[in-house]
């Protein structure tokens, strides 16, 4: 995995580099937007991680220029705490995801991995099969050992996102971005939790055991060998 990082703060950059290289990735770091623009336009990267506020060209403008040059590399924005508006701006500029500082290294890795999977997945499969669980994407139905499990549209979206990222931990923020993309407001934790817990209890009622695991302080995961 090759990652381009635009970050002018040395400490923050060091953290990102550690997290990515710890997972076997390689990071090219630039402190100025102009340099990042040149590098991202010239070479093929798997993911761009862009800080909003850097010297020279800022992250937002850098990505806008790249998108205008038809560089479609998935991009993750980093920004300071509590800037709801900049989150909307980031997504509008062509960003694929958004992470507020300070962040957990695990959260960063999970986001980067999700972006990678999304760009590498060539065609959307019609059915995702996880052991005895079948998620039929086109028909928007779910079956456990052939028996239909009745889910609300949002519950289905959450399960679909978990299934697409099976065996990977996804955070509440990631679920929010995937399931309620049109809202562009900060994650409404109780909305996510209610929908998630209803999904989990429905699945548990159908399967007799919990299918969605909770990973303490990190998020949720669904395994591919469900039985």
């Amino acid at each position: 995995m090759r990652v381009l990082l635009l970050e002018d703060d040395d400490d923050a950059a060091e953290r990102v580099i550690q997290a990515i290289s710890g997972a076997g990735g390689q990071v090219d770091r630039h402190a100025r937007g102009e340099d990042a623009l040149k590098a991202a336009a010239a070479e093929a990267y798997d993911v761009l991680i862009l800080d909003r506020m850097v010297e020279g060209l800022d992250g937002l403008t850098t990505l806008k220029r790249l998108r205008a040059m038809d560089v479609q590399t998935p991009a993750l924005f980093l920004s300071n705490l509590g800037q709801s508006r900049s989150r909307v701006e980031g997504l509008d500029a062509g960003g694929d995801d958004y992470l507020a500082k300070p962040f957990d290294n695990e959260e960063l890795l999970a986001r980067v991995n999700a972006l990678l999977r999304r760009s590498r997945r060539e065609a959307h499969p019609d059915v995702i099969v996880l052991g005895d669980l079948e998620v039929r994407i086109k028909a928007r139905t779910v079956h456990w050992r052939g028996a239909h499990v009745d889910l609300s549209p949002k519950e289905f979206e959450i399960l679909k996102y978990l299934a697409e990222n099976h065996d990977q931990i996804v955070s509440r923020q990631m679920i929010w971005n995937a399931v309620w993309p049109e809202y562009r407001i900060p994650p409404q934790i109780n909305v996510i939790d209610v929908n998630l817990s209803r999904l989990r209890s429905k699945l548990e009622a159908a399967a007799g055991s919990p299918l969605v695991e909770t990973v303490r302080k990190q998020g949720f995961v669904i395994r591919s060998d469900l039985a």
Partner: protein
Amino acid sequence: MSFDPTSPEPPRARGPSAFLRLAAIYVAAFAVSGVLFVAGAVHLVSSKNLERTQALILADREAVLDKIDGGSPELRFGKAMAIVLARGARPDDGRVYRLERGGMVAAGDIPAKAVLTARDGGWLTIRGLEGGRARGLALRESLGGGATLLIGRAYEDELQTELVSTAAAALALAALAALLVGPWASGQILKRVQAVNEACDRVRAGDFSARAPGAEARDEFGALAGHVNAMLERIDGLVVGLRDVSNRIAHDLRTPMARLRSDLEAARDAKDLKEARRLTSVAIAETDEILETFSALLDIAEAEAGADAGLEALMLDDAAEAAVDLYQAVADDAGVRLVFEREPCPILGERSLVIRLAANLIDNAIKFSPRGGTVQVRVEQADGWARLTVEDQGPGVPEAEREQVWRRFTRGRDVGSTPGHGLGLALVAAVAKRHGARIELEDARPGLRMRVRFPAFAPTPGM
């Protein structure tokens, strides 16, 4: 925002007063235009005078030539001499003549020492006429036999002289008036500006209640004082609000911070690694909570600080519907019926903020609703307002506590274990303020009715 009350020098006018400068420029412009006006008038008068003199001379020449016409040059010279000499007996009518022969003056009232200068059209200008008149104009006529006759007239310069002296007197008077009234008038103006400056200085020194006087006047200075006062009012509000918030933040974050600290201490002193890990995780969770509170506070600040430029036309009922959809599952889970009634209501707003406002009101209403209760969400037009109403059947808020509800960190007394950081409704208030919306709390008997009235936006046709 940097505010440093200790910085040494309040801003003062460091150069000459702008009013005095303006007055000086005005007086100078007035003087120049006055002088130009007088010069124009003098030029006009003198050129008219010249034309008139020329016409008179031409008429006179006609008459004189008529009289001396015919005969030998000698005879004509004699006739001309008679005319010139007869002239001396006539009253002074401005006419002047000179008869010459062989370059010598034979007779006439243009002295030999007068200077003759040729000008366009055969005219001669005469300087040094006798009889007090300085200047004149003449034509030279040849009589044959080496004799010439100068037929001329003295200039009438009196009008010109009078004009110049009157204008000079008027200008001097005007300048005197400007010197006397100008400083007084600019002094009056300076006094009013000074009053505004003084009010600003007092605020700068820390007295946030200072206001500029004279805001009730209906002129530009009244408007200036009014604007300054409105700004000071806002600063006052912000400072008080800020102080309030900092106190509350300090108070509310002290507890989790202290807990965080003691957990970290315990982790440091833990007997084994496993226990240390557990305590560190707890500490991280506490940090997250603190960060979340900060984040909410910053959101509020951001919503309050937004510029009007970011507002766009949107439908309040659509935004409310989005929030209702979002909270449907939460309501179901709490056993609360969520009812939505709507009417198309265009407003000017920032969509994500309006959704958050509606979502926070609905979230709050669900939280305080009893199981089996109903939360009503209504969007309707009312007297030029677009009104969003969220009504629950919960315990309501006692009259005395209603103002408190919109402040940061305020939580009902009986909320017990209901989760929340007490910032949800403060965000509602901030978003409402940014949209120029009014918020109201009413008793719904039983329950609480929260109303947000946005100014209705009427899109211009063709937009």
